[in-house]
């Protein structure tokens, strides 16, 4: 298992431009290994956009330019020598809506490892079991691995997607509002899973839910786009307890006390 040493990000003056509109600008922050960092802020403040920079999924949208520098364990991930496909093996992502592939539970989890050349049945079996255990889904599905993934409930599907992302042994897991489409019990299970995982994986989670950010994260970054005429910015980043009890910026305080957003 990967341990706490790797999986850190350093963002230096990061900006994101769609076509000729700059959506996010001037983000400088660090993401520490083996911790949970929450990105909060109102809708449209660029949280997901910033998240997608970290595994270069913005590349797939076309017409997107990322400025500044993003160092992943000291390596500039936008350097020409970095292959985004390889980066994504190390920086996994879980999406807002559960998106299992139309295949069996086993094949879903084995999808990533198979792409990267794991063929031996015993090795795959072990990987699938370990990943499902880490995603806290193993007990519920261990006797039905051959069943179609669409037979699972929404919460189970989302944990399957977490297991699927873990199967490539990433150092970082990006989560884009992973519980926003789920019921409270499933949300609880996802949060428990995140708490379990953070000792071995760096987690960056975008959330609309401030209680969730307060419950699960070690550090919180608050982003805000004050006007459509200007790009979104990072207002404040820091220790979650400090952010929620004694924020440095008035806007952060207004947001977390529910005065807007």
């Amino acid at each position, binding site marked *: 298992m990967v341990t706490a040493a790797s999986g850190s990000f350093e963002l230096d003056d990061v900006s994101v431009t769609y076509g000729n509109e700059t959506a996010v600008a001037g983000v400088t922050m660090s993401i520490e290994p083996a911790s949970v960092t929450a990105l909060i802020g109102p809708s449209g403040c660029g949280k997901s956009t910033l998240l997608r920079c970290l*595994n270069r*999924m913005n590349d*797939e949208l*076309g017409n997107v330019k990322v400025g500044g520098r993003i160092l992943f364990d000291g390596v500039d991930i936008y350097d020409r020598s970095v292959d985004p*496909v*390889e*980066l*994504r*093996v190390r920086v*996994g*992502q879980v*999406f807002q*809506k559960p*998106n*299992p*592939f*139309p*295949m069996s539970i086993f094949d879903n989890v084995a*999808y*990533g490892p198979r*792409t*990267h050349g794991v063929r031996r049945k015993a090795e795959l079996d072990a990987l699938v079991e370990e990943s499902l255990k880490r995603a806290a889904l193993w007990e519920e599905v261990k006797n039905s691995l051959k069943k179609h993934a669409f037979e699972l409930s929404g919460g189970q599907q989302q944990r399957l*997607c977490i297991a*699927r*992302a873990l199967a*490539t042994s990433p150092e970082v897991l990006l989560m884009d509002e992973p519980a926003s489409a789920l019921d409270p019990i499933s949300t609880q299970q996802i949060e428990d899973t995140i708490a379990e995982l953070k000792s071995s994986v760096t987690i960056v989670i975008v959330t609309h839910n401030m209680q969730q950010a307060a419950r699960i994260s070690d550090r919180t970054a608050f982003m805000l786009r004050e006007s459509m005429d200007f790009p979104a910015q990072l207002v404040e980043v820091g220790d979650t307890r400090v952010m929620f009890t004694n924020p440095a910026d008035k806007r952060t305080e207004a947001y977390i006390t529910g005065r807007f957003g």
Partner: protein
Amino acid sequence: MTDASFPRRRTGRPAFRRAAESVVTRAIAFSGIAAIVILAAITVFLGMNALRAVGDVGLWSMITGTDWFPTSKEPSYGFLPAIVGSLWVTAVALVVSVPVGVAAAIYISEFASRRTKEVAKSVIEFMAAVPSVVLGLMGLAVLVPSIRVLMRLDTGLTAFAAGIMVGVMALPTIISISEDAMHAVPADLRTGSLALGNTRWQTVHKVVLPAASSGVFAAVMLGVGRAIGETMVVLMLAGNSGIVPNTPLVSVRTMPGTIAGEMAEVVQGGEHYSVLFAMALVLFAMTFIINLVADVVLENQRKRWRR
């Protein structure tokens, strides 16, 4: 409200407008029903005209007969040369159009930029609009002589030549229906696969194609339907010989080619005339079944991704 009667508002909608509304509604309903009625009428019409052939020659002996000599003293009306000829042409057409068509659909759906996609789609629509006789002419001028020389045959008028051109005709159907099927695969499956460190091509191969497979199958079936029913190109290029072909490199006749080529020269109401109707009935049944299967498969595919 104490007043019991609900105050009626004068809508100012005169009687003739209401009448017009109902006339329009009925006209639309009638048009819908008309399609079904026409389909039924075609079947009945073909069946009635084929009755004499079925009585005189027998449906089974026509379908299994191996000789097509309708004008000899002892006429024989075997459909097998035409059925097998149609199948050869269709087979060649599929070998040409399926790989090219599916590859084009993958490119348009998964790799092309938005602009290229638009251009490609309209070009494909143009392709569908090329009259088949034009393709037939091109085949006669270019394909038939080249095949004769390259394959060292006595004649280039073969199932192979016709099949290639019919394949070109089936391409737009195969491309646009497969592309629709791939387009219908939810985008989040693609992002999910990419985020796991798969390349675009791996994603297409492992997620998009399997998920769209039934739609692609339906596209191919519709292409087959198109190929089997195609008349002009085969009439011009296939050579129209009367034997059961065992290779695509010989002259063949097809069902549509036979009907179109001979109908003008038969005695109306005669035996040969009726036999051609029986052949049309067989052809119609084949294309109907193929289209039906394709439709059912397509509908299932659409339901699968409606979530």
